[in-house]
């Protein structure tokens, strides 16, 4: 049995074991989450997303380094990194390789890195990623960096989870039409052009700036305070490293903005709303499946396969049968 008390007191072994239970959605994990919930809501959740190969892991690694060694008088923060990589749709297996870029933190008890497989979720993070961040939050990590799977255009789940979303781009990843398509660029609070030493970095930066400029003022309703966050484009290099302190400062600026304007609370509630909705849907479906032995499931499927009834009609029939039995 995992000790919630030990997790709250900073026991890393117990924390790691609890994360496994939570990731597998085991009853013991749920029980622990219930106990930990009052301790959550403190951490700054920072999402890091972008296409495969843009350098998300290397950037995350460098960012964590600045959290541990901030410039000036700022106190170091404890950082957790949750790095998500895709699961195979065929075997369920996964190769989680983000740690390869995150070797700089070995021996630092203020950094905790956990790899997660997406396990069939398609939004860029795993279904259990939210719960995993809650455990890390309760365990006292002040900043939680969530690195998504290599994301294309529509893996935008991270924006629901994170307070601050960073989209990492690299030079040569597409023209100005790509930049005005809907999707991943819209969710960016901060846009990072990584590998800025490569040719084409200026062009990429310029295209992104133009795209942001075109969309200025169209991002959601104005806040009561009238204050608006304008996403910034920042060139960085994660291997050398260059520009990482500036990225860190921007993240802190964004956090300040969220807290000043009430956006922090609004996003927190929005996240909890959608989490509750997801859980409720899953639970209702599970309970409904429990009663489905009462209904003629196979006959409904046969009619569907034979093109006698459409999926819509099948749903109607199944729901009617189950309500007759309840």
């Amino acid at each position, binding site marked *: 049995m995992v000790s919630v008390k030990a997790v709250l007191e900073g026991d890393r*072994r117990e924390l*790691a074991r609890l994360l496994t239970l939570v990731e*597998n959605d085991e009853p013991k994990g749920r029980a622990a989450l219930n106990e930990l919930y009052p301790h959550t809501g403190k951490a700054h959740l920072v999402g890091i997303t972008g296409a495969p190969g843009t350098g998300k892991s290397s950037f995350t690694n460098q960012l964590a380094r600045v959290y541990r060694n901030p410039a000036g008088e700022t106190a170091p923060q404890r950082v957790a990194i949750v790095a998500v990589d895709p*699961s*195979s749709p065929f*075997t369920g*297996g996964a190769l*989680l390789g983000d740690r390869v870029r995150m*070797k700089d933190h070995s021996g630092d008890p203020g950094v905790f*890195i956990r790899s997660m497989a997406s396990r069939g979720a398609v939004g860029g993070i795993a279904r259990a990623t939210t719960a995993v961040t809650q455990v890390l939050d309760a365990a006292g990590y002040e900043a939680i960096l969530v690195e998504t799977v290599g994301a294309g255009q529509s893996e935008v789940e991270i924006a629901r989870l994170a307070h601050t979303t960073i989209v990492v781009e690299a030079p040569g990843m597409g023209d100005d039409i790509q930049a005005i398509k809907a999707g991943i660029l819209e969710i960016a609070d901060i846009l990072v052009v990584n590998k800025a030493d490569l040719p084409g970095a200026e062009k990429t930066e310029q295209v992104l700036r133009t795209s942001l400029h075109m969309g200025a003022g169209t991002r959601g309703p104005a806040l009561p305070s009238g204050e608006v966050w304008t996403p910034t484009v920042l060139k960085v290099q994660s291997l050398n490293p260059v520009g990482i302190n500036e990225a860190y400062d921007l993240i802190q600026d964004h956090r300040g903005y969220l807290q000043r304007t009430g956006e922090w609370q609004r996003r927190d509630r929005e996240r909890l709303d959608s989490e509750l909705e997801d859980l409720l849907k899953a639970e209702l479906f599970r309970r409904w499946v429990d009663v489905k032995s009462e209904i003629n499931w196979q006959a409904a499927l046969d009619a569907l396969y034979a093109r006698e009834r459409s999926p819509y009609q099948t749903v109607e029939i199944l729901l009617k049968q189950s309500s007759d039995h309840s």
Partner: protein
Amino acid sequence: MPEPKIRILIAKPGLDGHDRGAKVVARALRDAGMEVIYTGLRQTPEMVAEAALQEDVDAVGLSILSGAHMGLVPKIMELLKQNGMDGVHVFLGGIIPDEDVPALTACGVDAVYGPGTSTEKIVADVRAACLAGAN
């Protein structure tokens, strides 16, 4: 209840830079449905033990071709134990002389695989060891 997900760390401790074998094994374990955490080259024993702890893996696969296994492996075993991970299964692959194998298994290594071992055997061994402990 589906089979519990097996999580395994594949690590290359020491200074040799040949990770082809580690990658082939990692790929085979992935294709067998496991979640494989790959750490990359030149890991110290401390880095391996810490990654195993944070990732809460069921097994650790070590690949060593430098000849330093008699120094590295006992150190890793000791650190795993210090971290409270006595239950984790450890597999070793690489260039390991036969006469070293008894000492390595005595310090807790589940199995040692030399060149030519089939990936099917490794997958089967890892699965058997991890699932035996799970229930």
